């Protein structure tokens, strides 16, 4: 992991790195958010969901590509833009074959499925909405900040173009925080990536709130 840290607090600009405290706090929030999303997914699927420890990286935009899965398979993405409280994108990424398994599991459908119809797309959007709510609500509580995201959209991508979606409407010179979490439902062979990308600039007021809350000046 390529993380540079400096013990600078307060104003954050594109050129200032996160301090150790800030990065640790963000890792912890990622853990909490992930835990909540995992509980929500477990409840949806009615089975245990395993999660890897989140990887949290402070990067420049052009480095993001290196850290996102480059599956050669066709992928389905559930994508949403975080529009209030912080700026960034949130994405669940999985191979198409896995999305069909997920849908079958949710519908309790035994039949093999190999296409997404309109109802499936609505269902995947709902899954995205539930998981993003679970994740971002925990962040909102911790940071004491309202966080709002756009309704999720579904996209398909081949050959690494999924990375472009996580970078939608993010400035080329932005510094970003990339959080990736691999999830796995062993019983159903369902696995995928939960990816959150936030601009450091937008995190500054949230970290300020956190510092105040913890009595750190």
């Amino acid at each position: 992991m390529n993380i540079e840290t400096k013990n600078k607090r307060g104003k954050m600009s594109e050129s200032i790195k996160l301090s150790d405290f800030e990065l640790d706090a963000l890792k912890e929030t990622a853990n909490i958010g992930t835990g909540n999303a995992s509980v929500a997914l477990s409840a949806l699927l009615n089975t245990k969901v395993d999660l890897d420890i989140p990887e949290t990286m402070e990067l420049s935009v052009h480095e993001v590509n290196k850290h996102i899965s480059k599956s050669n398979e066709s992928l389905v993405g559930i994508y949403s833009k975080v529009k209030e409280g912080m700026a960034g994108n949130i994405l669940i990424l999985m191979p198409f074959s896995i999305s069909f398994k997920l849908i079958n599991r949710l519908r309790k459908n035994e039949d093999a499925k190999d296409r997404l119809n309109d109802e499936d797309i609505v269902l995947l959007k709902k899954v995205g909405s539930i998981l993003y709510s679970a994740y971002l609500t925990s962040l909102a509580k911790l940071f004491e900040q309202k966080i709002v995201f756009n309704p999720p959209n579904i996209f398909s991508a081949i050959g690494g173009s999924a990375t472009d979606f996580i970078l939608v409407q993010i400035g080329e010179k932005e510094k970003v925080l990339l959080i990736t979490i691999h999830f796995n439902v062993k019983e159903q062979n369902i696995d995928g990536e939960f990816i959150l990308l936030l601009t450091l600039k937008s995190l500054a007021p949230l970290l300020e709130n956190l510092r105040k809350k913890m009595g750190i000046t």
Partner: protein
Amino acid sequence: MISLELQKEIGNKHKTFLVVIPSQKYNENTNELILSLTHNFNRVAYVSLNKLINPLKRTLQEKNVDMKKVFFIDGITKTAIPNPPEAENCVFVPSPDDLTKLSISITKVFQTFDPDCLFFDSLSTLLIYKDVNMITQFVHSLLSKVNAFGTMAVFTCLQGEKEEHMVKDLSLIIDKVIEEKPQQ
């Protein structure tokens, strides 16, 4: 690198092709294909169902594709950005599975841009949403337009078990199917 067979065929204006690409070579081959097409033709209509318009344009520019020769029919960007800013030489379709709007947009581009070549990337994306029969019908209707406008057409799809049935059916209506070899 795209195969010599494909390179030879690209200059043939009166043909329709389906290029079956191994997934590992997918990005590399589609970029090379569009570069070759813009070398051989003056106006290429590029149907993109996989790549967002801005990163796609950036990549093609980096590959030295003459962007003045390309008009994009973009069926993917609106799934990420519902109201994308207007882009030069580009028309947006709401989603890759909206075949009616896709077809209407392609017709409009044929009428206004008058392309020498249609590049369709890719049929594998349609296969995610539609069955093989529907895709075959759609391609058949596109080929009628392609013939009517005297345009060459290149369709792409991934090499895979899921695509086998589609490739077999389309081989009956497309002039030539070219299977690119997987990476050694």
